[in-house]
């Protein structure tokens, strides 16, 4: 096996990628599904409320609002600039916190606070910003609210459907980029006879298979991360997310190479994927329907790559919590590697016989 030859074949595959329908489809489909689900279940086109702030004296209110994840804060130099921004609907609302504001509130002097609202802003955003500001002022004043608020959750408990669908979308990204692209690329080489041309150069079957595997890993990793980012699921522990995504990409791409090495033509390959679709896609259904017995999901090989993504990327867990799943995934990948090696030998005989 030669790194130079593997790199040469990989570079060729990447340069040919944008000219291949399957390659482009693999890139577009997860993004399209994300957009459709975001539109259907909200979040993509519901931007965070935007609050403009002029903080002249280093107010505690400004510091607290900046720390809130649900509100996007923009700072302005002076009241005039803030007012212009509110008028232009660059922010939904704006407040000017003058020098000595905090001290005045704490002293019970009831200082005046101007709260500008953009006429074009969403009512929901106005309410969020107004209530939040009042809450922060009460906290600054050190007084309890005048009423006891009892919060009651109504409706089904658990994560919203938009969150539970994240594994489905990531799975699509993994399968399309990690499985279909290397698999179909390998099958296309067989159908066009170019594999035979490759194998009479210094390149060997192992070089070709390794290049296809790396192609799938790179694409599946990139597409999974992009999908997670679009679904706001990358989180702050992104290095750990990248590890689970990489392991998932390794397994899905190995599966793609095995299918590609086995299938003599595109028709057979798509037949295999269709036929085994239920086995491939079954694990993700358990995230959409959490009432189902979860142990069943473990029977499916791809559960072992989706579960770490779910727990680390979506639920914000740590690698230490999914070490068993990652070990099983790596074990399955190694087994697929051995299978691909054996199928590669058979493939060379098939190619020679054509």
């Amino acid at each position, binding site marked *: 096996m*030669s790194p*130079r*030859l593997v790199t*040469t*074949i990989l570079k*060729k595959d990447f*340069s*040919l990628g944008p*000219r*291949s329908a399957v390659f482009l489809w693999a890139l577009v489909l997860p993004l399209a599904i994300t957009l459709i689900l975001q539109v259907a279940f909200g979040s993509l086109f519901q931007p965070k409320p935007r609050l403009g702030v002029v903080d002249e004296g280093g107010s505690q209110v400004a510091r607290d609002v900046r720390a809130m994840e649900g509100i996007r804060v923009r700072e302005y130099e002076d009241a005039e600039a803030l007012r212009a921004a509110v008028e232009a609907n660059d922010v939904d609302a704006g407040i000017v916190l003058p020098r000595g504001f905090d001290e005045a509130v704490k002293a019970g002097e009831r200082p005046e606070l101007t709260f500008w609202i953009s006429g074009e802003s969403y009512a929901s955003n106005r309410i969020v910003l107004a209530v939040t500001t009042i809450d922060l002022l009460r906290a600054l004043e050190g007084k309890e609210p005048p009423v006891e608020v009892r919060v009651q959750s109504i409706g089904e408990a658990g994560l919203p459907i938009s969150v539970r669908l994240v594994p489905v979308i990531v799975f699509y990204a993994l399968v399309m980029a990690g499985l279909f692209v290397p698999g179909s690329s390998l099958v296309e080489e067989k159908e*066009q*006879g*170019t594999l*035979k*041309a*490759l*194998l*009479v*150069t*210094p*390149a*060997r079957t192992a070089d070709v298979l390794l290049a296809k595997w790396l192609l799938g890993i790179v694409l599946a990793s990139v597409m999974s991360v992009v999908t997670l980012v679009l679904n706001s699921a990358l989180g702050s522990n992104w290095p750990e997310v990248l590890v689970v995504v990489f392991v998932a990409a390794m397994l899905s791409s190995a599966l793609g190479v095995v299918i590609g090495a086995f299938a003599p033509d595109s028709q057979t390959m798509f037949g295999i994927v269709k036929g085994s679709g239920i086995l491939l896609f079954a694990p993700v259904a358990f995230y959409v329907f959490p009432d189902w017995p979860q142990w069943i999901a473990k029977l499916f090989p791809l559960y072992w790559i989706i579960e770490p993504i779910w727990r680390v990327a979506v639920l914000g867990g740590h690698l230490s919590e999914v070490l068993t799943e990652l070990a099983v995934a790596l074990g399955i990948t190694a087994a697929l590697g051995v299978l691909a090696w054996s199928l590669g030998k058979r493939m*060379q*005989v098939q*190619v*020679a*016989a*054509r």
Partner: protein
Amino acid sequence: MSEAHEPAIAVKDLRFSYGEIEAVKGISFEVMPGEILGFLGPNGAGKSTTIKMLIGLLPPQGGTATVLGTDVALDDPGLQARIGVCFEEKNLYLNMTARENLEFFAALYGVKDADVEGALRRVGLADRANDRVKTFSKGMRQRMMIARAFINRPDVLFLDEPTDGLDPVTAAAIRATIKEEAERGAAVLLTTHDMFEADELSDRVAFMNEGRIVALDTPENLKLKHGTRAVRVRLRDKEGVREEVLPLGDGEATARLAELAASPDLLTIHTEEATLEQIFIALTGRGLAG
């Protein structure tokens, strides 16, 4: 390159079977550097299987075969870097341009600063360098196949029907290129159905039938050995045109030939030399096209 006195290809008692079917039944031959060996035979004769073993696609099941001194059974990538192959099927990357195809294969062969422009110019495709191969005609694709086979300046060339589908002018140009490669010192194993091409290009020809080499010699020797030593003379007479066949080496016939040669009625004289196809039929009882 191997030394001129050592064969570039040496095959001894080579065998291969597809299950129960014996495709190659113990053949032996050699090709010297700078020599063109025409490999002739009908479909299923075992030519392709032999070539697949020599280029490393199939492992020999019996006998030995060395190319440039390396046993092909060793599956040495260094050997593949020194050979060029032109398949009968046009297995090019259709979505890549002509230039990209050649640059890619040059990179696989480890050729630095490959003369891609020169290779394309040689096969008359320089002006289409940046066009995708899928826009090429059958003949242009065939020319690309030739350019690809030559891109690493190989010491041994395996050419399977190299002029298939080409117009006569382009085919003649490709034949000239093959001759140039042989003159450079490359050993060429040429498979073709075209007897005229084999006759024109080959230093020697091997007739293959049912997995065996049934004859291996220069075209001239084969013709001498298997043809008729005679001349056919066409003459004008009162009734139109008549022909006479005169065996060579016969005293009476030689005198008659001299007489006819001096006659004002002489139209043409042709040798009765056998064609390669006729020799093949005589040897095997079957045609080359079958």
